[in-house]
């Protein structure tokens, strides 16, 4: 990874980012996470060998994204911190299972994180059903953290792509991903036939994959 991308990937001051945007570096390099990805894979290999510093580096790199995701699902900071701790303990235990030929490190980490978060949500829901805020969340203007300019750029692209989906498709994706609802539960929540919900979800995912493939080359 070269110096410019290092700064972008690990959060330099915003003025550095804007200097790079002006110089054209961000536009050409920020959307190529494969350069950072190599390091993610190396970090996971080092974690598998018991390197605590590598775990600390992975935490520093992804805590904002993962904590943001968990918080959006659970709406509670204490619970979200518990889950984030659990996620990194799982990463510690399971890093050796990661195989770069079978998937990307980012996807591995985010999928693990979402899965543990949804488990916690279901455990909490047995006592108190939380929030129907996820759907509204997609409509909000989300402020980007300047600490990770590269991810902020990607985030803007993903939000833009999601925003281009018809509302009813976007709604099913968000209910599934951020509220952990199954397609049957979504049909019941929306009062729509199950077949319709299945079609909306599949069409939404196909469209999203297509848009991300066009605009986020290298990420997908």
């Amino acid at each position, binding site marked *: 990874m070269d110096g410019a991308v290092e700064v972008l990937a690990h959060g330099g001051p915003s003025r550095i980012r804007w200097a790079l945007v002006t110089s054209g570096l961000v536009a050409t390099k920020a959307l190529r996470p494969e350069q950072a990805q190599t390091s993610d894979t190396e970090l996971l290999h080092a974690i*598998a060998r018991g390197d*605590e510093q590598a*775990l*600390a580096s992975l*935490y520093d790199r992804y*805590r*904002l*994204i993962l*904590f*943001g*995701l968990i*918080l959006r699902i659970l*709406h*509670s*900071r204490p619970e979200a*911190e518990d889950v984030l*701790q659990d996620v990194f303990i799982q990463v*510690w*235990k399971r890093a*050796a*299972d990661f195989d770069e030929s079978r*998937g*990307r490190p980012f*996807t*591995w980490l*985010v*999928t*693990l994180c*979402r899965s543990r978060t949804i488990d*916690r949500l279901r*455990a909490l829901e047995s006592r108190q059903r939380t929030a*129907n*805020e996820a759907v509204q*969340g997609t409509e909000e*203007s*989300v*402020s*980007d*953290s300047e600490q990770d300019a590269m*991810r*902020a750029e*990607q985030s803007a692209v*993903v*939000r833009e792509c999601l925003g281009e989906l018809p509302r009813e498709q976007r709604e099913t*994706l968000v209910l*599934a991903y*951020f509220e952990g609802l*199954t*397609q*049957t539960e*979504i049909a019941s929540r929306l009062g729509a036939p199950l077949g319709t919900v*299945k079609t909306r*979800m*599949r069409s939404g*995912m196909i469209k*999203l*994959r297509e848009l991300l493939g066009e605009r*986020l080359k290298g*990420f*997908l």
Partner: protein
Amino acid sequence: MRHEEYKEMLAVYALGALDASEARALEEHLATCRECSQEAALWLDTASALALTSAPAEPTPELRTRILESVRTIAQPSRSSRASRDVEGETEGAQSLGAKVVEMRPSARSRRSFASLSFGAIAATVAILSLTAALLVLLRRFNELQRRYEREHTAVEVLAKQVAEEREARELLTAPQSRMAQLSGTAAAKEASARLAFDPQTGRAMLFAYNLPPAPAGKAYQLWYIEDLAHPVPGGVFNTDARGGAVMHDRVPEAGRKASVFAVTLEPQSGASAPTGDKYLLSPIS
């Protein structure tokens, strides 16, 4: 179900939205279908991109230390136990969907060598295959039980935490030295209100807030303990639930234990050391 039907389910599977029975059937198919497991990994990339649409949020700095301290006490699994999980195929993580493909049909070359084996060797091979199959079944069952244990253990931990919180709330609300304060909504949130209970001796505090508007992305509410109006002491940061309610447990810093005025402002999600945002809740100033 046919291969094509399974393939159609992959996008929804990546969102975690299949019903349990469908997900189980698909996972069994994925363990034997390389094409579908590769396709599933791509759909998971798309689903994981959704994580980037959440506003980044900063956990408390102590969490990093807690994580690093806790992993020091956890030995990493040995290679043999990792290998057994690999055979069974994990259900969590992208890798599960790219589960290793087991080629069940012998290739042409292996059929030729199969024919040349003696009866004894065939019997031995059959015995080994049967034992391997039995072992795989046992491994699968073991992993299912382990996962169930982990799920239930998580639920028990959550309940234990809730019980501890409720016990703390009861102790706080019934302690003779505890003080209560009523906070009312300001012009920014006229419907909002809150009650604060705190013990000036131990510093334990609980805030019960009602009808607050949802905090914008990247923002959260923060409580302030005020003795000297010019120097509010920062308290805990919290978000509200869907109904605008919140219950926050806090520990009042020493400097805030003589506070007689309390306020809640809107601040960056990581909290602030001095108020920067609008006031939403305020107790009467005597």
